[in-house]
């Protein structure tokens, strides 16, 4: 009797044992540094709330936070506008075509972050093919493309669109085709079909995709720094500057903590409405 219960107990321990390496890794490389950052934000250069006061009231910081949110919002919107039709195309295509589109869409996942970013620099640069194309059609004074809000937004949309597409596609694929047929037989077409039936049914996918893209975009660092305009900084870039150039570890940490809190708030609101577990499909 006791032997049996011992055995089941041991069995129940197994999953936890398997998780240990990951848990140790997370504690050493994530939890501990995070606590360190939190502590620094209050203690560097000395024990005060001054870092937070500046982070929340300083005009520059406020401007950068607002810009970060606006950029993330705009990128999310672009991802949605690009991703929704593509996801729809995938859901109505044959299995093979859908997989092909998925492969093309996720191609950017298989190339390194930096390579992708530099590829954009080449494409959009002053001697790049796009400028050449402008000149070829007779626009002699092409607009500045690289190091603008345009170039960083474009690159971020490119990187983040797959998250949006996969979230929406996974919901679209599960929609019973009979629902669409019913709607058509009842008199719905085009716009009204989309508005009254298809959009509401795919809303969970849209919500998932948007939250995921928005939250990831809030913390984007490399892309805006390398491709964006220096005047349109995002918060991660600003934190980087604080640490690299001014060695202001306290200030940088405080900004990081504020960003973290904002992100947590968004995820909490989302969780209340939809459940975080749904975020990953």
């Amino acid at each position, binding site marked *: 009797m006791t032997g049996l219960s011992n055995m089941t107990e041991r069995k129940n321990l197994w999953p936890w044992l398997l998780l240990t390496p990951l848990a140790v890794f997370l504690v050493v490389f994530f939890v501990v540094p995070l606590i360190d950052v939190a502590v620094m934000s209050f203690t560097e250069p000395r024990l005060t709330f001054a870092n937070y006061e500046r982070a929340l009231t300083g005009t520059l910081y406020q401007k950068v936070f607002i810009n970060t949110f606006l950029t993330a919002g705009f990128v999310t919107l672009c991802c949605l506008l690009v991703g929704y039709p593509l996801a729809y195309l995938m859901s109505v295509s044959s299995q093979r075509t859908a997989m092909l589109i998925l492969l093309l869409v996720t191609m950017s996942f298989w190339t390194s972050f930096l390579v992708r970013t530099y590829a954009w620099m080449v494409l959009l640069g002053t001697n790049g093919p796009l400028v050449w194309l402008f000149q070829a059609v007779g626009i002699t004074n092409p607009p500045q493309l690289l190091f603008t809000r345009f170039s960083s937004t474009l690159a971020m949309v490119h990187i983040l669109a797959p998250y949006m597409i996969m979230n929406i596609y996974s919901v679209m694929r599960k929609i*019973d085709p*009979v*629902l669409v*047929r*019913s*709607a*058509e*037989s*009842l*008199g*719905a*077409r085009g716009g*009204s079909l989309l508005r*009254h*039936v298809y959009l*509401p*049914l795919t809303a969970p996918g849209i919500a998932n995709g948007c939250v995921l893209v928005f939250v990831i975009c809030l913390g984007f660092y490399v892309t805006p720094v390398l491709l964006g305009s220096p005047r349109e900084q995002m918060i991660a870039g600003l934190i980087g500057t604080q640490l690299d150039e001014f060695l202001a570890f306290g200030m940088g940490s405080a900004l990081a903590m504020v960003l973290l809190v904002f992100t947590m708030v968004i995820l909490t609101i989302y969780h209340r409405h939809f459940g975080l577990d749904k975020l990953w499909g």
Partner: protein
Amino acid sequence: MSYLDLKGINKSYGQFVALNDVNLSAAKGEFVTFLGPSGSGKTTTLMIIAGFEKATTGSVEIDGRPLQGLAPHERNIGIVFQNYGLFPHKTAAENVYFPLQMRSVKRAAGLKRAEEMLELVGLRDFGHRYPKELSGGQQQRVALARALVFEPSLLLLDEPLGALDKNLREQMQIEIKRIQRALGVTTIFVTHDQTEAMSMSDRIVVFEGGRINQVAAPLDLYHKPETRFVAGFIGESNLIEAVVTDPVARTASAAHLGEVEYAPTDKAKKGQGVTLMIRPEHMRLSRNPIEGRRNAQMKVETIVNYGDNALVIGKVGDLTMRVRVLGADVVIIKENQDCCISWTPDAVYLIAK
């Protein structure tokens, strides 16, 4: 006066012929059932009428107007699918309001109309519920109300009762029939269940392998099947291979039974191979031959009891025969017993095909 006309419809998927020369006319208000085994082309025909599939050749007309070139949303045809197709994000009343909404009926008036329709299908006070809060039978009723609320020119039902259990099924059969009569809507009902087809239809269209095998009223289909397939598909029957020996004396010779006299028909030719059908309830079981009837010796093999009646299955020579007896009579018979079966020539129906 025909209202719905299917004219020479063919449908191929690549090499595969799904429908082969389907022709059919239905009168206004008629309840027509498509009956046939799975894969015989019933759904395909329905989808061509509804406009979701395109016929390879042939045309569909309603009230003399060809439907060719009209998209599904332009056809004004109500459909109930097997798994209902209710919108999960809308309440029952909103679901029923939907087709009116698509026809630009104002929300207040439309919802009122939807509630009236729900009342007609026996779902008063259920309008605020979402589909997942309704039972299978209730969802079925909502789907029916939704397909009828916009006064469609035609109602199509594709195996709508397939997912329900037996009692609910019978209840819904009566219910659908009642609503269909009340509204007088021309209806095509698809099923592979012959009792369902028999109990509900004005006329039954029997499908087999993409062709229409026979079109007839339920009782005609039962008593005067034109093909061996129909005779075997509808109800229990004894089908006996025979060769016509004398069309004037109306006799055919069959293995193990010898010369068998059949009911009057104009279809028999001398020397022709035919099928003779005798329904089990048209035969009698007795210990000894009965005078004035045609008798044969049968060895009883199995007795299937249904309570009020029983089916006695046995062998005449190598020929399997089925006889239906009343439940009370079954006590006199035992398995492996020899007994007598008998019939009159009236009960022997000749099928030429």
